[in-house]
């Protein structure tokens, strides 16, 4: 090992545990596969409806400006369900470890000082400049980041899964309550699309934040688990509230 490499290795601090990195990248692959195959399925009927029914000749809520393509549905469905199984099993693994290890409470739940309106307002101002949030140190996520992660994990992903299952005639034979929950099969389809759009929005901001905040080091942290970033970043906590 050269001196320079030794120096770099010494400066590196632990950033992400192995299970976070593993589930993150499996999730990345599954999500992109779901996105592409979901679009392929959508192209058979790029119209959205509310309620139970909807078809080409029925009035639509929104007609998406997409080319109609009936030929892609077969592989689209196959890839969608394979990726959905990976997404669900990987998500279940993540959820269990995140809960059991305290990761959900320690890393993802905003600290008391972060929930102060002044702190949140300051964080929004930092993000608003679009120059990057100055990503907090390896020890703590910023409050908007935490809220975004929690929204994805606790709201968008479950809504995605349940609205997808509401389109299944088999699952709803066993659980017709799903129709009540989403207001019908076509409502579930529309909500499935809207929450997918929400996840794409999250992905765009997520990637932009990486690019704007030292992408090489952040990628290194998410791949090798270690990062050169100092323990306390620019938005370090002032004081331990305890």
């Amino acid at each position, binding site marked *: 090992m050269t001196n320079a490499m030794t120096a770099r290795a010494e400066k590196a601090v632990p950033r992400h545990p192995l299970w976070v990195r593993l589930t993150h990248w499996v999730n990345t692959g599954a999500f992109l596969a779901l996105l592409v195959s979901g679009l392929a*399925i959508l192209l058979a009927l790029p119209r959205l409806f509310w309620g139970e029914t909807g078809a*080409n000749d029925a009035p639509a809520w929104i007609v998406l400006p997409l080319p109609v393509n009936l030929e892609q*549905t077969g592989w689209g469905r196959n890839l969608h369900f394979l990726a959905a199984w990976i997404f669900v099993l990987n998500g279940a693994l993540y959820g269990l470890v995140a809960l059991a290890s305290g990761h959900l409470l320690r890393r993802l739940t905003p600290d008391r000082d972060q929930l102060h309106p002044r702190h949140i307002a300051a964080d929004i101002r930092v993000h608003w400049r679009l120059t990057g949030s100055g990503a907090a140190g390896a020890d703590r996520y910023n409050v908007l980041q935490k809220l975004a992660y929690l929204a994805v994990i606790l709201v968008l992903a479950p809504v995605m899964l349940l609205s997808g299952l509401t389109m299944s005639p*088999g*699952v709803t034979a066993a659980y*017709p309550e799903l129709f009540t929950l989403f207001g019908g*099969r076509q409502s579930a389809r529309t909500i499935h699309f809207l929450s997918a759009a929400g996840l794409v929005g999250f992905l765009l901001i997520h990637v932009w934040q990486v690019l704007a905040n030292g992408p090489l080091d952040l990628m290194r942290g998410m791949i090798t688990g270690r990062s050169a970033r100092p323990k306390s970043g620019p938005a370090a906590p002032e004081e331990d509230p305890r």
Partner: protein
Amino acid sequence: MSDLTRRRLMLGSSAMGVGGLLGGCELIENGPRRPGLYGLSDTLTLATQRLLLRDQPLVREFGPEAISAVFPTINTTDPDNPDYRRSKASGFSDWRLPVSGLVERPAAFTLAALRAMPARTQVTLHSCEQGWSAIGGWTGVPLSHVLASVGLKPEARFIVIRTVDGWWDSYDLFDALHPQTILAYGMNGGALPVAHGAPVRLRVERQLGYKSLKYLASIEATDRVDGLGQGRGSMVSEMGFSWYAGI
């Protein structure tokens, strides 16, 4: 429901139980085969749905007021088949539905014979894999009744259905004997329109629309489907779709 039907339902569901889950791709003995990762995810999906549906629940049924004004018709809407055209011209009076294979008393039923059997009317949601859905009212005879009247042999495991426009599909007894699996000759209070599969179509309510074949030509009971065609269990499977279409 006859004793035979109940016994079949139990056989069907126990075969799908723990043993099936452990068997992976052997989930259904002598059932359709699909290699690769898609086959694996199909098997996971089927195993999960069989677990959720182990008590054979019925799908939701609506009142007649829920029937959709728009009910699309896709694929064949008027079979280009000389025999069919002749039969249609005679009001399907010469139409016959042969039921053969692993049955005690092979028979060919006329439309009048099916109409004379116990009827079931169900207003249900039809879900297409393309994304559209519509509510229709269907009247017909439960497939389980037709199969009981010809007497399924104990070794029968699958029902293979062929249509006048050349489609075919197969169903294991878990779905074939379900009370809402009917041979429908009526739609929304009238006769079944030609565009919707006249004179008789299948309704398999817990699967997607493509499993509900139109223009039925024959019914056959078999003990295996892995030797039919490419071994995938249906024509749509050979086109790349799932044999089991519960989602």
